[in-house]
């Protein structure tokens, strides 16, 4: 990823707010994306990932949103810009059936979509063949009906169609959903390969934390708010002690025992994540200094440690901690509000 200047910014979003039926779906979101970056939009369902992408892809009318938004230097707020923006972007939906005519062959599908961009059949075919080769779509399937292809092959044809007109930006909605575990990494590596070869800016909307492996910057959303928008490494190093974690296997682990650990006096900023039935990960300041003291504290409080290891936190852990932190903040705000209401009564 190159850092680049303002000219390299392909998506600029400032103070975006989206409202439907007086309900605010997106709250004051701002970010920008540079040419060639892979951006991951992470969040649980209802976080607002898809809504933001729909604003960027001209699917939401301007009457439903406010703020300054530019996609390839054009505002999706003006209907006059729709056709130009749509010719500069590609989209790969979550479900292939929404992107492909299963009865037609991959090449015929390409032809249908390419024609929407005013491309001639021969030009489309040449680009398709190049993309199919990059994506390892077997040549003997190019002229067979799509319905005869495997799920993974359909997914790759879908990606090729998203790129057929050589867009500046490609939006991918849950690209790894519905793909089995082993093939998920294949899909991600194909996306990285396409990004490197074509220089296309990519937006990945996903629940799949493994997608963080290929993104240059990750956006974490919750309840329509953009909590974080930074590189994977920056996010992890912002954790206590640069994301170093101690993983404990504790006998009969329960909430009571986790609360005991949270009361460890030497590290007030201690963070815990339960990652298994009897497994807990702990992050804290002055990790090296405090680790032995933590173990001693746990034993003194009757916690039986069966095993222990240390590691650096993955993006998945950062995401969990960040969401937990936000939930905790909201819980405290609610308690405060309830207390104020009680006093007023």
């Amino acid at each position, binding site marked *: 990823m190159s850092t680049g200047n303002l000219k390299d910014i392909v998506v600029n979003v400032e103070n975006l707010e989206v409202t439907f039926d007086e309900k605010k779906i997106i709250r004051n979101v701002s970010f920008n994306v540079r040419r060639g970056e892979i951006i991951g939009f992470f969040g649980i369902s209802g976080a607002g990932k898809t809504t933001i992408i729909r604003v960027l892809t001209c699917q939401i009318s301007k009457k439903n949103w406010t703020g300054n938004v530019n996609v390839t230097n054009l505002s999706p707020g003006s209907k006059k810009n729709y056709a130009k923006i749509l010719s500069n972007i590609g989209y790969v939906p979550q479900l292939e059936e929404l992107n492909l005519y299963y*009865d037609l062959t991959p090449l015929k599908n390409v032809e249908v979509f390419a024609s929407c961009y005013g*491309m001639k059949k021969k030009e489309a075919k040449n680009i398709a063949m190049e993309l199919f080769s990059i994506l390892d779509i077997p040549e003997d399937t190019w002229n067979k009906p799509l319905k005869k292809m495997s799920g993974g092959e359909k997914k790759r044809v879908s990606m090729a169609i998203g790129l057929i007109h050589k867009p500046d930006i490609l939006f991918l909605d849950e690209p790894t959903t519905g793909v089995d575990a082993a093939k998920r990494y294949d899909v991600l590596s194909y996306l990285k390969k396409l990004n490197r070869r074509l220089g296309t800016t990519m937006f990945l909307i996903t629940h799949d934390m493994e997608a963080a492996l290929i993104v240059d910057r990750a956006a974490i959303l919750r309840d329509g708010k953009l909590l974080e928008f930074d590189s994977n490494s920056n996010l992890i190093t912002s954790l206590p002690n640069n994301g170093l974690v101690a993983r404990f296997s504790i006998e009969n682990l329960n909430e009571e025992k986790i609360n005991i650990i949270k009361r460890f006096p030497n590290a007030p900023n201690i963070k815990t994540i339960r990652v298994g039935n009897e497994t807990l990960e702990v992050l804290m300041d002055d990790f090296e200094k405090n680790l032995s003291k933590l173990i001693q504290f746990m034993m003194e409080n009757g916690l039986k440690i069966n095993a222990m290891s240390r590691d650096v936190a993955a993006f998945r852990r950062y995401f969990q901690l960040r969401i937990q932190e936000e939930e905790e903040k909201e819980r405290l705000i609610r308690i405060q509000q309830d207390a104020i209401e009680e006093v007023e009564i």
Partner: protein
Amino acid sequence: MAKSKTNDNWNSGTFFNRLRYSLWRVVRQIKKEFQLLKIDKMNLVIALMMPPAIIMLFAFMSTSASVTIPVKVSVISYDSNTYVNQNNYTETTTWDNYTSKYLDAVKESELLELIEFYDASESEDEYAMETARNEMRDGNIECIIVISVEFTELLSTGYPGIIELIPDSSDAAAIQDKLNAVQDSIKIFVEENDLDPEYVLQEYEEFSIPSKYNFRYNYNMTILLPFMTFGISFVLSILVVVQEKPIPRLLLTPAQKSEILLSKFIVYSIVLALQVFLVLTVAIANGLYIAGSVIDLYLALYMLGFAGVSLGMFISTVSNTKTEANQLFFAFFILIILLSGMFVPIDAMPDYLQTIAYMLPLSHGAPIIKGILSKGKSFIGFDFFWLLGISSVLIILSFLVINRKRYEV
């Protein structure tokens, strides 16, 4: 890969440049529609093979019915067989008995089966008519042929003899068959007795089907042709928009909703043109009587079919799911059929139902087709313009609905 030159300039520039690319996209969408249609074999079979097959079936059914089932008749003769000389008022027996000759003709006709002959002259069988009527009520005969009092005398002196026909009219659709059968016997009678020109045989009534054409087949065609052309076009187009899952994705390209819908209208109009051609070819080959012109019939049927396509497309556009489209189709189809005048004449319906009936397309089908087939009328007329009006309104509504509809991937 270098960025495609095409998409840099195709959407910018003048109105005509944009229009050019819009037309380009429509043409490509049309090509896509044809590719999809080609793959959907069942739809093609329904559109192109089923209508001619139904016509063939009707032709076979009608032909076999008229050939193998002669009309059962009883003949009652009041013929006196005597001749009164006007000069001297003497009564003599005629030199020739035309009643027996007519009976021979009845027996000879393949279209008639003589069940009973009653000689009611000279009060020999004064209850003949009552007996014959009872036979007809019981279903033993379908028709009573009555030979008038001075039948032989009139024919002998060069005047037309009178034969009355009393058909069983409980089956209105079969009256013409009976009339044709009796006319066949008269034709034999006239030819064998060299009665021409004294005896003038009028071959058919005004606007009825000529006797050399199969009445039953032609009668059914006035109902079947509009019903089938409208119905099949209607049913074929109800899922065209709603079942195309990639439409929302297509709309994330510069393709417009109106371009997608327009391409579908064009493709289904072309299919309709072929369908009407095949239907007419098969119908004519099987003996369709057209008093008017074939071109008029073609255009009238095309208009009816187009009304079906327009209504189908409208339903497909307003529906959100295939189930919803099928339910709407069923509701509309039942209403259209019931109020089409096929079961109850529209003029016999209450005023408010007549208003609804005349607004529906199929109610204008039978009149326009009957006018061309039997009366030789032109397709241009109130019914045609009404169909054109309905179709235009439905097309405009379809475009308005699809443009307001939210498609999201």
